[in-house]
């Protein structure tokens, strides 16, 4: 399978990155991988189930605040705090999805947006837990009882992020190839038909939202100890929109595309903002270009010679 060969090649290249890249490039790469994980988690909803979420920042922010809070107020070792935060995001998502899946289409999207803005407002007001507009600063990376200090170094943390991303990718790939994934695609193509085949599509949708949020929460939970910091910006709707852009520009319904989309978005923001303060304008133009001329995104462009791989 060429797909898995490519996966191992990418894994080896990424694992070797710290030996060849300067320190600041590693900072950027780590952040790009975290955002890639977030975008990939959204792809489960957008690309495979056609559940367009305008509130995926909620997953990221929840994870970021939860791991930040745990690390600031408990002595939990870093990996435990990160996993607990991801779990929390997934559990919260069950309730959210239960409400949001009462609606479909645009109404679903609006409900996700409303939920994310609700969390944003909570984060802004609940000073004792979230630090309000100051956010949580100085988030440590506890070594825990076994004295695992490897994650306190820059490259050690990079490997933690890399392992999480690769693990999440394998998990998602297996998920979308499974019978469960087939039902998700059924919902994407024709929900009424899938329902008439005897599948409780709402339960499937709730499950995929919960999984997507748990992985998005994992990304957020990795971000806050990485940046040492979490603030309300992470929950803002603007960020939800950016993640959606990453998915669409990268290529929805491909898992790998959104990861590339996230890296592309970050890199472009970084390069453009060095030249102009209105970088968002240029990014908007690029986004329009993708939607109009390359709706299958970056990954679609890369694989367009082999149409059998296209998954749109």
């Amino acid at each position: 399978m060429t797909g898995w060969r490519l996966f191992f090649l990418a894994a080896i290249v990424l694992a070797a990155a710290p030996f060849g890249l300067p320190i600041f490039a590693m900072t950027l790469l780590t952040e790009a991988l975290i955002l890639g994980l977030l975008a990939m988690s959204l792809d489960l909803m957008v690309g495979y189930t056609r559940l367009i979420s305008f509130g995926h920042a909620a997953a990221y922010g929840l994870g970021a605040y939860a791991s930040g809070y745990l690390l600031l107020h408990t002595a939990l070792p870093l990996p435990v705090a990160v996993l607990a935060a991801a779990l929390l995001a997934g559990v919260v998502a069950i309730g959210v999805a239960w409400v949001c899946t009462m609606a479909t289409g645009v109404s679903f999207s609006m409900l996700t947006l409303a939920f994310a803005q609700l969390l944003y407002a909570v984060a802004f007001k609940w000073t004792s837990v979230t630090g309000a507009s100051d956010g949580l600063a100085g988030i440590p990376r506890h070594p825990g009882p076994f004295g695992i200090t490897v994650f306190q170094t820059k490259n050690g943390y990079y490997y933690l992020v890399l392992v999480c991303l690769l693990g999440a990718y394998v998990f998602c790939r297996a998920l979308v190839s499974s019978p469960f994934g087939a039902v998700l695609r059924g919902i994407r193509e024709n929900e009424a038909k899938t329902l008439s085949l005897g599948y409780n599509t709402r339960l499937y949708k709730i499950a995929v939202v919960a999984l997507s949020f748990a992985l998005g929460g994992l990304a957020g939970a990795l971000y806050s100890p990485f940046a040492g910091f979490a603030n309300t910006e992470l929950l803002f709707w603007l960020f939800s929109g950016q993640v959606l852009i990453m998915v669409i520009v990268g290529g929805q319904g491909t898992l790998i595309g959104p990861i590339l989309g996230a890296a592309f978005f970050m890199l472009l923001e970084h390069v453009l903002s060095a030249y102009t303060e209105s970088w968002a304008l240029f990014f908007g133009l690029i986004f329009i270009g993708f939607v109009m001329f390359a709706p299958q995104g970056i990954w679609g462009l890369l694989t367009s010679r082999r149409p059998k791989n296209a998954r749109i």
Partner: protein
Amino acid sequence: MTKTHYVSRRTMLKSAVAGAAAASLPAVPRFANAAEPIKIGMPVALTGPLGGIGAQMRTACEFWAKQVNAKGGLLGRPVELIIEDTAGNPATTVRKAQEMVERNGVRLITCIVASNEALATVPKLAEWDTIFVSGDNGDGRLTGESLVPNFFRPNTSGPMGTRAVALWLRDSPMKNFYGIGMDYAWGHNSMDVFEAEAKRAGKNFLGAVFSPTGTKDFATYIAKIRQSGAEGVYLVLAGDDNNAFLSQAKQYRLSDKIQLLTEQVDEMGLNATGDAAIGMIGGSRYPASLDNPVNKAFVAAWQADYKRLPQMFEGDQYQSCMVLQAGIEKAGSIEAAKLRTALEGLALDTVKGHIVMRACDHQAEQPGFIVKVVKREGMEHPMPEVIATYAADRVTPPCNKMVYDN
């Protein structure tokens, strides 16, 4: 607008080699250093609601760097400013600062505008081995519970600004006060101090409202202030928010009924709001009219360059630059450990007179000023005029504290 300086890996390598050579061969350090500028990182909010303040701070830094470089630089090395826009977002600030440190080899930071940006940055300073000299960050916690060894605050803090107003308040006949502040760290912090001070002066504090940063319509807030029945309202607003509030307050004739008080009177706001601010009384971190030789020289040089008086944040940031300069000259180095020792207890004459960088909490002891906005004949804009000055020992809080004992 934004300048970016790329340093190639080769240049980095060269400077590292040069640095190593300088360290190992004490006979040639001046020569080796001469090629390498002192880089000062400025992650400054140039866009967004705080952009106006950021622009003032940047102008002051550029003015200072130009002066220093014209005199042959610092320690014989030219000063290079590395300026990046943060849009006032703490996450961006940390990222840009990290980039300056890791990519450009910056070891000195100043010019961060918002307190929440500063609060997000300070925990990283130890890891970066970098000194951050605040130019305007007001939040009391920065020299209190959030103090880190590599942070220094030469500027007037929020609590100090409020303290000056409170001291003035004690002599005022007004009894009842209300407050409006921006809904972020600085707003809440300053309001808490004002409330404590008002109560201590035997006055009634009737309550306060907080508006989100970027509020354009203050009608509901103004209604609340009117309904409060207070004689004076304390404003903790800055930038565009302050301008929007004052313009609207004028429309509603708020100042006819209630004396407007503020933590700080900022010329930028006065220029933007025209006559709306006349009669307002407040603190000033730096009024350009201060009568001391350092300030006179500064104002004269400034006027020659910009054809106008320096504004409040320009003066305050310039003082921070002077402190940084004196520290580097005293330490003979920009190494964090040496510079930290040099800055602790540093005393010098600046644009605000004689100030001392306290070793205990890295806050500069300095006087506080109360000004009233007036418009005299021949003035294009209303201007702040000093009506009271309070000595450093009355204005500066006890070490690591945000509230005062008396």
